[in-house]
Structures are given as structure tokens and as C-alpha cells.
């Protein structure tokens, strides 16, 4: 559901709307950022920046340009990727290229907010290795179809259809 009334209130700079938007999307934003940065403290910093940007730039959002979720997703990915170019990040984290979101799910030391251990197993087992990679690049990292095809060395035409199959499986497991 598009939170249309909330978006309008947000665009009118009503602070209560920002609180509601935060409650709705903070975990998603945090997950996207954390998957890119892999550092709780840095991710929390970026999370704050993202909601400041949502507050400041809300008037520029239009439903015709895309989903509100997608708009927030873009802001989150860009802010996190910007952070990876910062000195403090470069100094401490070098080899994150090969990792994808599945590592986070498999890492038992992580205290994940919404999913129990059974849920985690469901996510992972439902996805083929290629699906995990495609979803990681397209959804979490914001790659284009072309970039995804090149990175995974698969034909450009199959990215879209293969991704469709992967998301279908995900929907089934999650019973969405």
C-alpha cells in the first residue's frame, strides 16, 4: 500500500508524518544500508541521514515517478554507497565485493529484528545461488540490468525473467 495520506502530510512538513514513515520503513532502510556497509555504527549514521533527506526532499516525490518505497530505497542505497567512498569506510573495510545479503542471514551472531531462526532458514533454502546474487545486485545494491548481466556473466535478456522467478519463490516462502 502506498501511504498516500502520510506522504502528503510529510510534504506539508508535518513532523508526526515523519515519525510514522520512520516506523514503517526504518527497518527496511537499515537492512539495505547494513547490507552495503556491514557496520552497525556507520549504518545508524547513514540511517539518520536518509530520514533527514526524506524530510527535506519529500516535496520532490511524485507518485507518477514510482513507488514511495522505491524512492526511499534509492535514497538509502545512494547514501550508503556514498559512505563507502568516505575515508573512514575505506580504511576499515576492503573486501565486501563478494558478500551478499545471505551472509547476514547465515551469520548467527547477528541479532536480526523481525525474523526468527526458522524464518531465516526459509529464506535461504528457498533461493537458488543465482537468485541470491541477482536479488542482491538488483534490489540491495541498485545495479541496472546491464550491470547485473555483466557482473554475473549471464545474457542481458534473462536477467528480467530470471529475477521474476526468484521473486516468485520468495513470495511463496513468505506467503505474501
Amino acid at each position, binding site marked *: *500500500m502506498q501511504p498516500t495520506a502520510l506522504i502528503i502530510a510529510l510534504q*506539508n*512538513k508535518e*513532523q508526526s508524518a*515523519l*515519525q510514522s514513515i*520512520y516506523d514503517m520503513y*526504518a*527497518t*527496511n*532502510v*537499515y*537492512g*539495505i544500508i*547494513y*547490507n552495503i556497509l556491514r557496520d552497525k555504527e556507520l*549504518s*545508524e549514521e547513514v540511517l*539518520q541521514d536518509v*530520514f*533527514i533527506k526524506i*524530510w*527535506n526532499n519529500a516535496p520532490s516525490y511524485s507518485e*507518477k*515517478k*514510482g*513507488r514511495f*518505497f*522505491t*524512492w526511499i*530505497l*534509492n535514497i538509502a542505497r545512494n547514501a550508503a554507497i556514498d559512505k563507502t567512498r568516505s575515508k573512514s569506510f575505506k580504511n576499515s573495510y576492503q573486501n565486501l565485493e563478494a558478500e551478499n*545479503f545471505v551472509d*547476514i*542471514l547465515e551469520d548467527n551472531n*547477528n*541479532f*536480526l*529484528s*523481525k*525474523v526468527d531462526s526458522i*524464518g*531465516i532458514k526459509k*529464506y535461504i533454502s528457498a533461493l537458488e545461488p543465482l537468485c541470491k546474487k541477482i*536479488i542482491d545486485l*538488483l*534490489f*540491495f545494491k*541498485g*545495479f541496472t*540490468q546491464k550491470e547485473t548481466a555483466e557482473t554475473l556473466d549471464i545474457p542481458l535478456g534473462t536477467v*528480467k*525473467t530470471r*529475477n*521474476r522467478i526468484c*521473486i516468485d519463490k*520468495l*513470495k511463496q516462502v*513468505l506467503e*505474501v
Partner: protein
Amino acid sequence: MDIKEYIASGILELYVYGSLSEKENTEVYAILQEHPEALAEVERIENSLKELSAAVAPDLDTSIYSKIENRIDPEDNSVIPITRKRSNLPMYIGWAASVALLAGLFVQLNKNKELRQQLVENQIEKQLLEGKIQVAEEDLSQTKNLLSVLRNKEFIQVPLAAQQVDPNAYATVYWDKENQKAYIDVAGLPTPPPGKVYQVWSLGLNPLTPTSMGTLDAFTDNKNKIFSLSNPNNSEAFGITLEPEGGSESPTLEMLYTLGAVES
């Protein structure tokens, strides 16, 4: 359009990811308005992605929202301060720029004037130097000429010794017999008093027959003190006397300054 096929194409997933172009986004939006099935599919995709992204998020510190709240300014939406801020700054910048430009122009003008003046001065100096060089070159060629005369072994060199009138006086005659020319070096003679002039004589000795070779006019103006006179005579000696301006018919022997015989 077959909406099932459209949904199966996978474009709606890309739409939610945000990996479509702006134009494609507009097209999808139009279709979603017409086909509730497609819109429902978008919602399902979005929900599963929300679950997925939430699943990878670590526990969220509950204090974060208050930090965000502290960083936003609810008054920020009032329009007036923004426009006021905007209206003044460009004006000041504009004025500052024009003042800077004027100052710059003035400086350039002044510089230009200075450079022109300097150019004129340089041209004058150049002309002066050229003149000096020309004079020096003339001097040099004259001196070279004289040097070639002095070194020419075909010339007969006749030293003229001092006489009673002035014991310090001396002179030398370089006689180019073949070309009937004589060069008289009188650097050792005092400057003649006003109204007087040196006169050079060619002498036959037996008997003594003086023949005037000419007067040394403009004595002071001749810097080298070397005069060139013609001498067609069969000279046996040369003498120089001080005579009244214009010269005399015969030498005033009391005023004989130097005398020397040609060695044979």
C-alpha cells in the same frame, strides 16, 4: 494488452527495484492505474522485498528517531527566510563583482599607459645607442685606416725632433711616396694659440728650399691628431712651423717647432 503476460515479463519487479528508466516508469504507472491486477502484484512484490530487507537489518536502536527529530527544523518550511536569503546575496555578489571589475579595468588601463610610455622611452634609447654605435664604428674604421698606414712598410717614417721654441714638441711624418701622400702625426705638438696655425714644409736640403705642404687647420677638432696632406715633392726633410692663420709663403724659422730629415 494481455495483463497476465505483462506481469509475467518481470517488469514490475524491476519497477519496484527502481532499475527502470524514467520513461518506462511513467508507462508502468499508467498501466497500474488501469489494471488493478498489476497494481496488486506490485504490492505483493513490494511486501516481499520489505520483508527481505527487514530480515537483514540488525536490531534497531530505539533512540535513533529522536536523534533524527533533533536534526530537523520544523520551521524550515517557511518560505520567506529562504527567499530573503536568496534575494540579497546575489545582489551583493553582483556589486562586488562590478567593483572588482572596475578596479581591474583601472589597473589594466594604468598598466597599459605605463607600458606605452616605457616603449617610447625604449625607442629613444635605442636610437641613441644606434647613433653611438655608428660613431664608434666610424671611429674604428678611421683608426684601422691609420693603423694600416702606420704599419705599411712601403711608407717612409720620418721622426721630427723638437727645436728651440718647444723642447717637448715632436711629430712624425708617414710618407707614401708612391701615392704622393703624407700623414702627419702631431700628437706631440701643443695646441696652437688663437690666430695661429701649424704649417708643414717639405724641405730640399742642398740648398735649403722649403715648399709648403699646407696648414693643419681645425687642430683641436682632429682627435687623432693625424693629418693627411699631399706631397708631390722630392722631400729630403720635413719641418713644422707656427704661422699666422692662413699660412705663410715661406717658413718663419724662429717658430720652427719640429724638424727631421728623410733617411736615405
